[in-house]
């Protein structure tokens, strides 16, 4: 009796709602990304054109990463239909079964590096870890390679590396001891740790956020650092005396997933297909330094030729860099991070 009443009530409420608002819950999806200028760029490059084309509403939220997804999925309170994550987080979340399967009949995966195309996650953009140095200290004769960064006698000065992203720091440590770009993965973790150990005593700050890395360089607290290319580009645009290149950069991918239990899975799939399409992918570098994940974006002609050389995922730049292997880190992250923490805290 009461149950039937409830159902009736719900049905009536549903009818009323759909009658009153054309774009009902069924036509709305919620997307979470990292916030800040990156998400603003994504809004212009991906979200707004997609919403317009599909005639839907895209609501936005921000995420702190895999913990948030895990909390929503395990707590049966999934708020997001699509969320952005780091590629290694995607690999881990996939193993934990936190995501919906992707339908590659809807999503066209051509042009995306196969390493970033998986059953339940797909690459969306790239960030690079690059070596930045201050030109007011070194002129244009600053450290160009990680081996230079490690050479404290030839390049005296204050240094910062990431303390929170052990994967990135171990990758550059492997490069520093002379490992060729194509041999970095799978990472020899113990060898990389030994490499970190050599420079450890000369590191003045282990940064834990992109903002902090930027502030350290900008305020001259350090003379050289590992830094994300987006932050480095911002510094250069602001006129800070800095120099960096993609030589020996570490390319890390971001990916997008549909959290398990999303109420608008099908619509999300369509939206995701738009996001990774070459056309919209080509929009991204117009607004931000993070390169598109789909290399066909460079063939659309939307990206000006002089801009292409500054984009980390442009084919010429990709050749100079190491691509982080998400599945390697899925399996080795915990052990490597604990060992890394032990090392830098000694």
């Amino acid at each position, binding site marked *: 009796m009461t149950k039937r009443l409830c159902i009736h009530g719900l049905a009536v409420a549903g009818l009323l709602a759909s009658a009153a608002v054309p774009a009902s819950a069924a036509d709305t999806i919620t997307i979470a990304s990292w916030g800040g200028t990156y998400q603003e760029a994504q809004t212009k490059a991906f979200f707004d054109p997609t919403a317009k084309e599909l005639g839907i509403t895209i609501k936005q939220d921000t995420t*702190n*990463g*895999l*913990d948030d997804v*895990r909390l929503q999925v395990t707590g049966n309170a999934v708020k997001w239909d699509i969320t952005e994550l780091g590629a290694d987080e995607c690999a*881990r979340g996939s193993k*934990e079964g936190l995501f919906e399967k992707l339908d590659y009949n809807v999503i066209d995966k051509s042009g995306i590096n196969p390493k970033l195309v998986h059953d339940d996650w797909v690459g969306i953009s790239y960030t690079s870890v690059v070596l930045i140095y201050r030109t007011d200290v070194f002129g244009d004769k600053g450290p160009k390679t990680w081996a230079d960064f490690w050479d404290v006698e030839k390049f005296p000065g*204050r240094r*910062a590396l990431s*303390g*929170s992203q052990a994967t990135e720091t171990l990758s550059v440590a492997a490069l520093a001891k002379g490992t060729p770009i194509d041999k970095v993965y799978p990472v020899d973790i113990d060898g990389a740790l030994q490499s970190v150990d050599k420079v450890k005593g000369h590191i*003045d*700050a*282990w*940064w*834990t956020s992109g903002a*902090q890395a930027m*502030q*350290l360089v900008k*305020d*001259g*607290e350090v003379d050289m650092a590992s830094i994300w290319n987006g932050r480095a580009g911002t510094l250069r645009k602001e006129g800070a005396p800095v120099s960096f290149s993609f030589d020996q950069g570490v390319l890390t991918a971001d990916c997008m997933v549909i959290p398990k239990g999303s109420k608008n899975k099908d619509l999300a799939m369509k939206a995701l297909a738009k996001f990774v399409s070459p056309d919209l992918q080509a929009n991204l570098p117009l607004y931000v330094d993070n390169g598109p994940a789909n290399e066909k974006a460079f063939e659309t002609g939307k990206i000006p030729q002089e801009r292409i050389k500054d984009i980390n995922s442009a084919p010429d730049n990709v050749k100079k860099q190491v691509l982080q292997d998400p599945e390697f880190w899925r399996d080795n*992250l*915990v052990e490597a*991070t*604990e060992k890394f*923490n*032990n090392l*830098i*805290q*000694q």
Partner: protein
Amino acid sequence: MSIGSASLGHAVRQDGELNARALRSDARRQALGLLALLSPGLFLVFAVIIVPIGWLFWLSLFDESGQLSLANYARFFEQASYIKTFATTFKVAFVVTGACVLFGYPLAYMLSQLPRRAASICLIFVILPFWTSVLVRTYAWLVILQRKGLINNWLIDLGVIGQPLPLANNFAGVVIGMTHIMLPFLVLPLYASMKTIDVDCLRAGMNLGASPAATFRQIFFPLSLPGLASGVVIVFVLCLGFFVTPALMGGGKVIMWAMRMEQATSLYSNWGAGAALGVVLLAVTLALLGLFQWLLGARATGVWSQR
């Protein structure tokens, strides 16, 4: 009872049992009534404190595959960095608490000696930082303390130092930043307790031949100890769980327990790893509070020696 017995006479007198049952049930009713009044508070304590802590403890007992295990605790002994972090956390808490006492005691003393109006104005300045976010204050310290910050620039311009002092992105930076944030938590209870010290007690001290310094040492200071103790406990416990300032001012070289917790929740795919860190911190904090209580309790019940 005796009046009742006398007035009601022999008919109801049964070995002092007059109205005993009615009185007992009245007492029971009153107790139940009190319990009913307390129940919202008890419920809140249960829902907001007991349940989450119990849950935290429960979570800490499961490993990544969801099996009951002590793996989350065993990790503390297998990885040297956890012991190191634990030691760092307590070292920071001790040093910051010490610095707060060093600066806070004279400040609270000055406030307690000022006329009421002046004291309340000064108190506003003590409380004012509470209205700014910890993040903003920490960044402000960074601007002041870093290698090319205000202090180093001034000192170099004045020729006091040749090389910048390492004030930020290290232990010193963390201590300076945290001391600033924790100071009000020490000053406020201390000030309140100093205000309750009877002026006549201090006059009596001087009248009886103690110099102002001796009066301070033998009378004012011991009487301010309870306030100092509560301030120290508050600051110390807050320090143990502090995150923002050490994360920003430590340059990644001063890793505290709360930072480890944040890291553990993102590194491990189960909550148990972070939960175990929380349980350990909670247990150690409770043990310390117990120790404080025991020490202070001994002081409050016994008269502490004059020699």
